[in-house]
């Protein structure tokens, strides 16, 4: 039988090895990114710069992702996203877009959710043929860091996505894909001995399908359905039913002194509808409505609705 001390040492060694391997992966990813940037810079004369700015507001009916009505909190926020990137036509069928972006969200009531994020992404797209109707595949790698006013949510993000799509007519296109999302929490503030405090250390896998139809030359309607299986976070007042099925718990003062964030396994079904009104070739007004339903461990079930109004501009 192992003594508690040797068990602790083994855990420490394991953590050290894990940290080393993470650092090694980070170095490799950085090297690969540098090589890609150098390769692309060599053909910079064929690159097109892109600048995007999205400014708007959002409203969320259940920011806490709570299932008890008394714990549900809603709020509205101002949002601003800015991105600069470059597109390379690698061949007649292949394109690569590298983008750096920054975003911020400022909430009206719950200032702990205010965030400043920076990130980068790479999208490789391949068309299986010539013409707008040729099917295509797009592979996306995105990463970033989000710095929240409430430290519990500070995290690095990694998002991998593979999407297959086709335009069936100039007005109608559809796509489906799979996504892996990983969020690495920076702060570990456990409140229960033996249970992790890294509530926002999350990962999940999703599948989704989306379609867009341009009703007129200016108005584009979109619909997206997705299902995600993975970690979810619900913030409530102390709740035994959630406590017993949580694998990470931390105090979440963003919503008040008595609130705790619980990490659970769950499945989230999301339906999104959107309308985009083109103001001209470079800008649009966009309205999006999202409904989420999450069925988590221990019979925890919650819903949330959110709506966005965004002005999008591209140069």
């Amino acid at each position, binding site marked *: 039988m192992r003594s508690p001390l040797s068990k602790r040492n083994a855990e420490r060694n394991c953590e050290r090895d894990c940290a080393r391997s993470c650092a090694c992966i980070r170095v490799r990813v950085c090297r690969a990114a540098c090589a890609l940037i150098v390769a692309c810079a060599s053909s910079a004369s064929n690159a097109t710069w892109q600048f995007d700015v*999205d400014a708007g507001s959002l409203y969320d009916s259940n920011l806490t992702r709570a299932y008890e009505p008394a714990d549900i909190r809603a709020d509205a926020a101002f949002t601003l996203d800015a991105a600069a990137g470059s597109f390379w036509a690698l061949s*007649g069928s292949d394109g690569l877009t590298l983008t750096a972006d920054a975003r911020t969200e400022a909430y009206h009531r719950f200032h702990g959710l205010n965030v400043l994020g920076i990130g980068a992404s790479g999208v490789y797209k391949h068309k299986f043929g010539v*013409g707008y109707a040729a099917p295509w595949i797009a592979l996306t790698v995105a990463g970033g860091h989000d710095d929240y006013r409430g430290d519990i949510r500070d995290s690095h993000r990694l998002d991998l996505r593979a999407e297959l799509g086709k335009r069936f007519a100039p007005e109608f296109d559809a796509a489906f894909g799979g996504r892996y999302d990983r969020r690495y929490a920076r702060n570990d503030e456990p409140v229960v001995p033996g249970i992790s405090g890294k509530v926002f250390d999350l990962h999940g896998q999703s599948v989704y399908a989306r379609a867009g139809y341009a009703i007129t030359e200016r108005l*584009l309607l979109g619909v997206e359905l997705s299902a995600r299986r993975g970690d979810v976070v619900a913030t409530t007042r102390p709740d035994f039913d959630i406590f017993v099925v949580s694998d990470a718990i931390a105090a979440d003062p963003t919503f008040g002194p008595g609130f705790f964030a619980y990490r659970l396994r769950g499945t989230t079904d999301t339906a999104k509808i959107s309308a985009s009104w083109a103001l001209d070739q470079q800008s649009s007004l966009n309205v999006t409505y999202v409904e989420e339903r999450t069925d988590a461990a221990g019979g925890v079930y919650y819903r949330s609705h959110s709506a966005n109004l965004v002005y999008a501009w591209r140069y």
Partner: protein
Amino acid sequence: MRAVLLYATLALAVGVVRAQTAEITASVTDDQGRPVEDAVVVAVPIDGRARVPPRAREGIVDQVDQEFVPKVTAVLVGTPVRFPNHDNVRHQVYSFSPAKRFELPLYAGSPAEPVVFDKPGVVVLGCNIHDWMIGYVYVSESPYFAKTGKDGKALLADLPPRAYTLRVWHPQQDAGEDTTRKTVDAARGGPAAVAWTLKLKREAKVRRAPIGEGRTRY
């Protein structure tokens, strides 16, 4: 005295030539009375005799700001057309139209060889990199054609004086080109006018404007 005679003869000759040409002013509006730009008006002599130019001129369809410029180009059948690219990004221009199928592999600058449009009809242009890019080459079997400007008017000048069948084509035209046929007798020379009112449908074009992502994360 000789010089006066020479000038008089020349003036007479020019007058005779002018009297032997006709011009037709075409006017195209939509069903709400607005002028229609980029409509191609074609005049075909009813007797089938056309004064074919000795050599067809070269056409140019440019690519500027990821759009075809001009959007509509009208050329005589057999005309070579060049596709210079003035963007920083490369383009891959193609067409699947029966009147001319071609594909210019990804290029920057100007391709070495022009594309010869050797069959009459409408050729729809696209770019495989930028799906929203769309352009049209109208290949006319008659040497007498013109494109309407922003005022919806086109001038067919220097026509041999005879009767013509005129028709009009536009990318957004709801009815077929054949339904627009009109006969104009310009046998006496001088100016004539013809007008069309077209019902336009929405353009079959992929939208270029951005779409706001509307992200929510926390």
